């Protein structure tokens, strides 16, 4: 047990140490002459930090991890100049709060569906940021965003409001590549593998034909 009050003193020692650490760390940071300095938000949020951990938002911002997810956006393929979305409806089915609304494009004559969304809405007042739509999309057409500041002024135009329509949702794949570099790399790899496979399949298809004909083989392979 010990003397009455020692427990309190010991505790006060801990608070004193915290108090000193708060200043000591900033002092060390200011006196650091080496020139290689970590930005403050990064330094303050590492497991090595001893002093303050707070960051002065919105002046300072924490770097977001790549996996960070906020309301989804639609990826626009800048290479093919087309939406990646085929309006297959899987995202609308896996959405737990059912906040995704898709109107599929129909051929005006044959009434057959065209793989492209005519309208696409995400009601961000309902979206729970679970990330299922991005996870289960077979075309990598919908991704979770890093932009978490969605508030708007009432005088702003409706497209800034919380029910996002297709125009508001669509963002170029270069943006996707910039916020999700590893995911983008995976997509590129998969695409390359796919193309290699296709090419191999095409060649395999071509070869027996070549073998069968024997003559003018080289031109047939083209």
């Amino acid at each position, binding site marked *: 047990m010990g003397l*009455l009050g020692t*427990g309190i003193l010991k505790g006060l020692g801990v608070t004193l140490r915290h108090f000193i650490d708060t200043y000591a760390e900033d002092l060390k940071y200011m006196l650091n002459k080496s020139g290689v300095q970590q930005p403050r938000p990064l330094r303050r949020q590492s*497991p090595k930090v001893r002093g303050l951990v707070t960051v002065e938002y919105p002046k300072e911002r924490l770097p977001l991890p790549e996996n960070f997810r906020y309301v989804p956006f639609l990826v626009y393929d800048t290479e093919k100049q087309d939406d990646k979305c085929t309006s297959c*409806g899987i995202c609308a*089915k896996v*959405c737990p709060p059912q906040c995704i609304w898709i109107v*599929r494009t129909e051929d005006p004559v044959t009434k057959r569906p065209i793989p492209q969304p005519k309208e696409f809405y995400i*009601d961000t007042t309902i979206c729970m940021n679970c*990330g299922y739509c991005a996870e289960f999309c077979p075309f990598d057409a919908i991704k979770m965003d890093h932009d978490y500041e969605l508030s708007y002024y009432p005088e702003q135009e409706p497209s800034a409001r919380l029910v996002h329509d297709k125009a508001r949702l669509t963002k170029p794949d270069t943006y996707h590549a910039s916020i999700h570099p590893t995911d983008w790399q995976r997509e590129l790899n998969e695409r390359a593998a796919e193309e290699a496979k296709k090419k191999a399949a095409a060649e395999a298809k071509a070869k027996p034909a070549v073998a069968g004909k024997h003559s003018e083989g080289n031109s047939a392979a083209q």
Partner: protein
Amino acid sequence: MSEEMTNPAAAAKPAAAAKPTPAKPAAQKAPPLATLTPELLQLQQHFGEAVIAPAPYVGVLVNDLGKLREVMTYVRDQLGYDMLANATAVDYIKEGYIEVVYHPQRSRGGEPLTLKVRVPRGDDPVAPAPVAVPSLVPVYAGAEFQEREIYDMFGVRFEGHPDLRRILTWEGFYGWPLRKDWHEPYYEGDTKPFDSRWPGGHHQLAEERVPWHDNVNYPPGFDPLNYQANPDAGLYDTMRSGVPGLDDGSASNGHAQVAGVGAAVSVLDRNSNLLVDEEELRTDQIIVNMGPQHPSTHGVLRMVVKLDGETVTDLKLVLGYLHRNHEKIGERNTWLHNIPYTDRLDYICGLANELGYVITVEKMMGIKPPERAEYLRVIMAELTRIESHFWAIGFLLNDLGAFYTPALYFITERDLILDLFEAVTGSRLMCNYMRFGGVSRDFTEDQIMRARELAFERIPRKIDELEQLLTDNEIIKARTVGVGYLPAERSINYSLTGPCLRAAGVPYDIRRADPYSIYDRFDFDIPVFYGADVYDRYRVRVAEMRQSVRIVQQALNQLDQTKPGDIQAGKKAYNHRVPAGQAYGRVETPKGELGFYLVSDGGQNPYRYHVRSSSFINLNSLKEMVVGHKVADAVVILGSLDIVLGEVDR
């Protein structure tokens, strides 16, 4: 099945039970014996016709309602199932009955028993079921809130219940929300996904889509303009009983003297003070409403306390301010949809909730996640336990009056853990990480390094610091030692689980008592203290954090023996179909036992989705802990239970 369906009617009038008797032995003899445990067999031998085992279902059906209490007493005393883990009900609307399901368990471990009774559900969607079930409160005190919940949600009355009122909705609520024929406002369909979303999904707000007047069932003769709500009907009745001078006409509606929430109202008639009759020494008993918005109640909880001076003489809880009928939403959802919703139960430890749900569904589907996923699950669940206990201790100190200095120290550590969660899963609290048969993402090398840094360096150091700051502090000891005492037998009878039960000397932790996932591979202890008071609940939490650190360290060390990237069993799917059946699965969350009782009809959506919430059931025992203490201690005792209202109210 057909004779099973007629049983409830027969059970309703035990004297006339002759009719279905000849049919029963056949149903009893057929296949079920193989699935019966020895305990159930013993039960059947002892009670004969009163308990049967209907073929397609797990567990035993108590056929004779009148014998339910006798059967349960036998189960408790002779078979040693001393704790009612879970009580809930299922509305089988096609078969025409409501099945009340009990899961008693042994405080020394093992799987719970399943016992059921059936009552006809009645044709009137508003009236309660015509037959009442005997209340089990005299046998298991922990049944009190659970039976009130069943009454509230299904309209099954419990005979002999001390205070049978609605608990999550308010008095005067129209209908029984978990019955299958009850529809919520903005009802769109029984099950998701809704057809209106695709392929012709023109967006429409729910409020515009469903016209208000078509969607609300007004009681017959209801006049909204002259209706005066009395949501507290019956609340003050039992608190007043025994107080002379109050049962006169003025208080006929039970709470005429209580002006409003938060009002302190004199309850005791001045003439009835028997101690002394000098003016200056008179003490009045008053009823004080603490909450629903009060910093000490950890959310929107309302404690109605009767005070004699500063001493609490009675306490009642008013719950449901955060009620959103999680279970109804769960029945609308597909199996997969429910995972992110479980995060929102106890939002301090979302990953532990996910684990509970996912392993229960895996049990029904009969799949097993790969090794690496198991390890990742354990790492996440144990880190969740650490951050939840940091939070609990910080806010316990808040309740003691040490405003925010200790809490913020611990929130710092918690935030570092949440940073890791965010990097791995994408979100700090609503992680949505577990999947059926795996997890959604693997740890990268960086993330493993970060987890190692936390588990091997930072957190152990900070737990030491926490102990230095608090454990020997004389003021904390003076405020907490001996406060909120609830002995082991009472704790068990109240179905108290989690750190509070272990602080009463009962080494009951589901990770050991009924192991799940891969907890049997790790070397860790179940810390137990014997004080059964607030101080020991604090110490158990600190000791548990140290054990969780041990588990995380071992799991991280063993993680390199598994194959990176191998985190999902089978192919990733979104349209799971779970085989018809039912299961009760549970995990040890930082708050206690979190159970999921799931019933599947073989479709894409759960037929019944029940959450056995530890915070909710732990609150049963609050009254017994608090009565006799000062009102300031009531706040501390509530803090020591560490409830989260998201899970209490569901």
